[in-house]
C-alpha cells in the first residue's frame, strides 16, 4: 500500500525559526529520512516553498486562468510531503507520527489510489 503523507503547519511560525532552530529541524528530517529510507518505507518526498510562491491554475471553457497564491487560504499550509509504502494503515500512522512536524503541525495520511 502506498500512502501520501501531507505535512501541514503554520508557515509564519516556520519562517520565524532562528537559524539554530531551523538547523535542528533539518537534522530531525535527516534522521527521519535515514531511518525510514533504510527500512525501505520512503518512496519519495520534498519540502515545498511557502504558499507565497504558489500559483493556481484553472482552465474553463478553454480559457486559462492563473492566479497568485494557494488553492485555499487556511491557517495551516502544506509545507511538504512524503510518499511511503506500508502494509497497512497502522504502519502508515506510525511513520506519520515520526515525521518531525507531527509534534507541531498535522500530518494527513492519504492512501494513494492504486491504478
Amino acid at each position, binding site marked *: *500500500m502506498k500512502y501520501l503523507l501531507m505535512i501541514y503547519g503554520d508557515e509564519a511560525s516556520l519562517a520565524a525559526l532562528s537559524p539554530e532552530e531551523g538547523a535542528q529541524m533539518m537534522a530531525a528530517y535527516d534522521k527521519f529520512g535515514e531511518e525510514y529510507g533504510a527500512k525501505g518505507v520512503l518512496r519519495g518526498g520534498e519540502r515545498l516553498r511557502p504558499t507565497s510562491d504558489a500559483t493556481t491554475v484553472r482552465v474553463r471553457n478553454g480559457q486559462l486562468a492563473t492566479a497568485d497564491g494557494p488553492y485555499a487560504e487556511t491557517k495551516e499550509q502544506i509545507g511538504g510531503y512524503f510518499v511511503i509504502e*506500508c*502494509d*497497512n*494503515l*497502522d504502519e*502508515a*500512522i506510525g511513520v506519520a507520527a515520526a515525521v518531525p512536524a507531527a509534534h507541531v503541525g498535522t500530518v494527513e*495520511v492519504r*492512501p494513494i489510489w492504486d491504478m
Partner: protein
Amino acid sequence: MAGDWDLAEECAQDAFARALERWPDDGVPTNPGAWLTTVARHRALDRLRRAGVEAAKYEEMVVVSGEGSTARSDEIADDRLRLIFTCCHPALTVDAQVALTLRTLAGLTTTEIARAFLVSDETMAKRLVRAKAKIRHAAIPYRVPPGHLLPERTTAVLGVLYLLFNEGYSATHGAQMIRRDLCAEAIRLARLLVELMPDEPEARGLLALMLLHDARRAARVDAAGDLVTLDEQDRATWDAGEIAEGLATLESALRQRRTGPYQVQAAIAACHDSAARPEDTDWHEIALLYEELSLLAPSPVVELNRAVAVAMARGPEAGLDLVDQLDAAGTLTGYHLLAATRADLLRRLDRRDEAAAAYREALGLVGGDAERRYLQRRLAEVTASA
C-alpha cells in the same frame, strides 16, 4: 488484507448472531469456539451453495470458517477480537465505529441500527458503506493491534461499548428513555470482550459498570415514562441477580490491581446498588471515588458528580460551593445537568426563587422528553405555595 475482512465479517457475523440468539436460552455450549466454527461453516456453505460461488472463493471462505482444520476455540476467539479491533479503529469516525460494531458483532440489521440512532435507513446504510470502503481503501488492518498500540486501541474499543450502553441507557434524544436492545447488546459485547481479554481489568470494570446500572433499569422510569431519581426508586425492583454479577465482576477486576476509570465508575454504581435504602448510601465513599475518578479521567462532568456526592455527604451548601466554582470556570456552560444540579441544591436549601430560575434554565437546555417532564415537575414544586 481486505479479503480477510470481508469474508471473516460475512461468516463470523452469522455465527455470532446465532450464538446471541441461542446461548441465552440453551446456555453456552461446553466448547463455544467449536460451536461457533460449526455454525459459521454451515452458514458459509449454505450461502455459497445458494449463490453458486466458484471454487476459488469457496477455498478462501473455508479458510476463514475453519473447515478442514480442527475447530480450535482460540482461533475463533482471535477472529472475534480482530473484528472488534477493526470495527473500533480510531481512523473511523466514532459513529461509524458504533454502527460497524453493531452490524458485524451484534448482527443487528442496518434498519435496526438506524432506528436505534434515530437516523434514516439510507443514512445508516451510507455510513456503513463508507466505513467499510475506508477499511478497504486505507488498508485498516484486520488484526489485534501489536503490544505498543494495544493500550490506546483497547481504550477505543471500551469507549465504543460504553457509548453504546449510554446511548441505550440515557437516550439523549427522543421519547424512549431506555432503549433496552442497545443496552443488552453493549452488555453482551462487554461480556465477550472480558472473555477474549481476560487480563484486561478495565474490560471487566466496564462490564461491571453496565450490569450495575442495568440492574436499576426497571426502577429508573415510571409507568408514564418519566425519570425516577435514585432516591425515589423502588429498590425492590432492582435486579438482584444482575447486581450480584456486577459486584462479582467488579471484585475480580479489582483483584487484577490495575485501576482505571471504568472500575472506579463501577465502584460508584456498586455503592448505590448495595444500599438497601437511599439513606444507607455511603456518600463519603462515593465522593472519594469521584475524586479518584477526576484524577484518572479529569472532566467537568465528573466534577459535577463529585459536587452532588459532596452535597449528599456534607450538606447542600458544600455541594453548591463546588457547583459555583464549576459555573465560574465556564466549561459546562449550556449543559442542562449543571443548571439542574444547582436547582436541586437550591431547592434543598429552600432558596425557592433561585431554584425556580435554575430549573427554568435547565428546561431551556434539556433534550430528552422524560428529563424535561422531571424538571417541570420540580419547577412546579418550588413555585407552588411559596
